[in-house]
């Protein structure tokens, strides 16, 4: 059973599926969706079976496969997972089918947003094909144990996401897509230089250059060189994660991406950054990691607070959720660079929980936008009276996002804070303030959109007085220009329908996970902890 090449299959199945979906003739949209959903479910099953086959007490890297790929560069197509990668693969396997389900009825550009004037409906075949290709690359990026291979997947991921944002996004999709691509590319290219540098160091130390993670981990690199190489990797991951001040691409990208793309962008792609800190920065450059840890911690804590403050100021729901993510990534970075097992385990658990909670939040916001046709908080009010289930799920997602005890995020946030407090008390205390801000931005958004009288695009119940019109172009934060298009066409107020069966099926698994993992996170912790311990022992951390 454990000899089955799960990881290869998890890359090959969606890649082939993507080609098949793209090759379907025009007009077979339904078949394309069904095929894409089927393929993504196969990947989910494979991920689950891989988790079963994974032995939590066994080797650090399991389910390994290795084939020589480019012998001249010493590159192997080497795959394998530790506990950290495994839980990320489970998250990938879980989110992609849900995203496909959530995008089922999108036919117009800009899922749920106002279609831009002059663009006709785009074929959704390619949307699903890009989604599957992205899934293949996401699996690859977490499963690679060869740094060259990791880099290839890291950069290749940009292309499908670029097309998802650019072809199917909101009004400013061109700007957002290019900004996303360039930010990531700059980071990636700097990392490329560091990857090559690492290879050259391995050539001089081992006699033969290698990209294999296990061999590179044992190098004894000169501290000065370590610092340079660390920075090369760090910049790429800090852009991906994103850490303040390299975060400005995320709100634009997440706001303009179609909801499905935004879920994967924030839920998975950004985790590659924090995953990279743990997998590559800490074990490969232990001295440099300790040297730069104070700097990273400052950035992390500043990010927690600054992004939370910005989130409160947003009037666009998608941007708000994007800023909450940046705040959460600050917590994750804090947990990783506190160098204690509890904090780092909490950080990895946070990566999973954040994918679930923020994924759900994005999905619900998408469902809200699909009904109202506006991203502005000010255009909504009193939705709960007309769509109670929607409001309930929105509340659950929001509470999970602000880490209420009983939800999954509480466990991870608590672990991060309690784990970092003994080593870094000041940072932990300051970061705690972020929790208060989180309650503010989430509850304010919930209250404004769900409660109160019906207003904006929400039509009041028959018999009430006339609704005040949509909010129009008021409170537009720093958007100007094209963003104004979004609110300019006065949308007719509509009665809000409650969640359909399809939508319930999409959100139900996430709601269940939020509650289950909130009270019983142990299975995940069992998988994560050995890998975190191994990572920190590479670093030479004591606790």
């Amino acid at each position, binding site marked *: 059973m454990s000899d089955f090449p799960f990881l290869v299959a998890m890359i090959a199945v969606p890649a082939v599926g993507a080609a098949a979906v793209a090759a379907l003739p025009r007009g077979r949209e339904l078949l394309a969706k069904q095929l894409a959903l089927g393929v993504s479910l196969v990947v989910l099953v494979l991920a689950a079976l891989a988790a079963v086959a994974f032995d939590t007490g066994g080797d650090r890297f399991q389910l390994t496969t290795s084939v020589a790929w480019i*012998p*001249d*560069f010493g590159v192997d197509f080497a795959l394998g997972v530790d506990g950290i990668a495994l839980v990320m693969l489970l998250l990938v396997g879980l989110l992609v089918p849900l995203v496909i389900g959530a995008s089922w009825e999108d036919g117009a550009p800009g899922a749920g947003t106002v279609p831009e004037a002059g663009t006709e409906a785009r074929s959704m075949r390619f949307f699903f094909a890009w989604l599957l290709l992205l899934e293949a690359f996401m699996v690859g990026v977490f499963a690679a144990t060869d740094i060259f291979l990791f*880099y290839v997947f890291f950069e290749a991921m940009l292309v499908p996401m670029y097309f998802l944002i650019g*072809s199917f996004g909101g009004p400013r999709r*061109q700007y957002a897509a*290019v900004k996303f691509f*360039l930010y990531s590319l*700059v980071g990636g290219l700097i990392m*490329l230089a560091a990857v090559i540098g690492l290879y050259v160091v391995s050539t001089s130390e081992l006699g033969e250059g290698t990209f294999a993670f296990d061999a590179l981990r044992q190098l004894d690199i000169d501290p000065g060189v370590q610092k340079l190489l660390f920075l090369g990797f760090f910049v790429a991951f800090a852009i991906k994660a994103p850490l303040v001040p390299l975060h400005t691409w995320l709100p634009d990208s997440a706001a303009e991406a179609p909801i499905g793309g935004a879920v994967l962008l924030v839920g998975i792609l950004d985790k590659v950054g924090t995953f990279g800190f743990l997998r590559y920065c800490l074990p490969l450059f232990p001295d440099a990691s300790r040297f730069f840890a104070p700097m990273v911690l400052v950035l992390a804590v500043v990010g927690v607070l600054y992004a939370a403050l910005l989130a409160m100021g947003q009037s666009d729901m998608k941007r708000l959720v994007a800023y909450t993510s940046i705040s959460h990534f600050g917590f994750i970075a804090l947990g990783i660079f506190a160098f204690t097992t509890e904090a780092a385990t909490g950080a990895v658990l946070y990566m999973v929980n954040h994918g679930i909670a923020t994924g759900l939040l994005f999905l619900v916001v998408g469902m809200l936008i699909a009904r109202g046709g506006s991203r502005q908080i000010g255009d909504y009010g009193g939705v709960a009276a007309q769509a109670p289930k929607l409001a309930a799920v929105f509340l659950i997602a929001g509470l999970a996002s602000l880490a209420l005890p009983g939800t999954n995020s509480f466990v991870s946030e608590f672990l991060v804070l309690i784990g970092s407090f003994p080593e870094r008390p000041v940072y932990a205390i300051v970061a705690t303030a972020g929790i208060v801000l989180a309650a503010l931005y989430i509850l304010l958004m919930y209250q404004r959109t769900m409660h109160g009288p019906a207003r904006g695009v929400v039509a009041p119940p028959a018999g009430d007085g006339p609704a005040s019109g949509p909010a129009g172009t008021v409170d537009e934060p720093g958007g100007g220009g094209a963003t104004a298009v979004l609110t300019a066409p006065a949308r007719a107020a509509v009665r809000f329908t409650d969640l359909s069966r399809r939508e319930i099926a999409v959100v139900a698994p996430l709601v269940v996970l939020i509650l289950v993992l909130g009270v019983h996170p142990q299975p995940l912790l069992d998988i994560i902890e050995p890998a975190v311990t191994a990572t920190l022992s590479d670093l030479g951390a004591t606790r």
Partner: protein
Amino acid sequence: MIEAPDLSLAALAPLLFVFGAACIGVLVEAFAPRDVRHPVQVAVALVGTGGGFVSTLVYAATQDLSAGGEITAAGALAVDKAGLFLQATVAGLATLAMLLFAERGLDPARSAFVAAAAVPAGSPRDRELATATRVQTEVYPLALFAVGGMMVFVTANDLLIMFVALEVLSLPLYLISGLARRRRLLSQEAAVKYFLLGAFASAFFLYGLALVYGATGTIRLGEIREAVGEDGGGTLVVLGLALLVVGLLFKASVAPFHSWTPDVYQGAPTPVTAFMAACTKVAAFGAILRLLYVAFGTEEWTWRPLIYGVAIVSMIVGAVLGLTQTDLKRMLAYSSIAHAGFLLTGVLGLGADGEGSGLAATMFYLLTYGLTTLGAFAVLTLVRDGDGEASHLSQWAGLAARSPLTAAVMGLFLLALAGIPLTAGFTGKFAVFRAAIEEGAWPLVLVAVLASAVAAFFYLRVIVLMYFSPPAADGPTVGVPGIPTTVVLAVTAAATLALGILPGAVLDLAERAAIFVG
């Protein structure tokens, strides 16, 4: 008793194929009846370039090259492994370019080349000819001579032969740059500019040759190396070296010797631009590598800082000025300048003793860049409006909606030029960067990665236009390519993907071919 110089006919077979075909082409031009001339010329050109390609491979496969190669033609040519790799690259790319020349399905006038180059542009006779379906075929033998010159260029073992080859490859290029059927004034301007600046560059090269000869008393590359190694480099050698390098950098369109590139790339008929961008680059870098390592390898510290600086200038100029372009052909010209800078990072990745992976990396990069840029220009020939090719950026808006396949192929080439993984461009870039870092040139690589990021912006902009913009109301039409262009697009696109996903075999070949003799 006069002894005939030793001639290894097997080693010269590729050159004989190309030059023979060129001479036959001239005769065909003179004697064949007009209506069969085009098919015959195309056949001769393809046999010449294809034969050159195949005979290079056959020679490399059958001969014993354990010594690295042989020096033949009285010491004038060094047919070594690296030379053979570069010859095969030139001949192979030229075969594809000839297919682009032969395309008759796209232009309503059945050819991209002017019917009578001597008729003044805009004259009544010119207007009459512009719509006539008369096809002139002198471009084929001219291009063949250029190909032959390039193949000599990369194997030249003495400076004089190198100079002759430089002229043999340049003069036909000047001419065929001026042969565009449409926008003739632009084309003629390009030809004149190219000729004037090229003549200066040749003069620089010749002057440098004279100085080096004066200092060392020889024009053989190997003997120059010995002479310089014994006496050390005097002022004359340094000056001569600088002038020789300037002449070659001009051909390779390296900034600051690049000023002809955008104008000529824009004005020349697009198939000719494709030919120049791919083949001339290979030939020029082949000669640069040979000159620097065979003749001046011991003078490393004279030229290394120079090449270092020029590489940085070229990358920055290409990437930054490329941002401001609104014409695709000019944009690709600046891209070519930036890529010349990346290639120079590979050149610097070769140690003085011939160790290091720089030579293999540079040759591999030349191959990938040649294929990709040839393919990109081939796509440009498809997108047309009433006035020939629609190369203005704005005309490409929404191309994906109009012709998904064309846009997809162009998107692939652009991603490859930007160096995105799983395309040939990434493998090449990785190879040259690795070579440079191994030689300790990591600051250069840092500049290179930043320049790549800047350059990526203008490649991405085209993708944004093609995919994410609504189509223009009266946009261009996408022509249905005939068999020749289809073949070129299929080969280049397949190679761009294959060299990105499974580059092992070709990298290995380049690695084994990375030996100069002389």
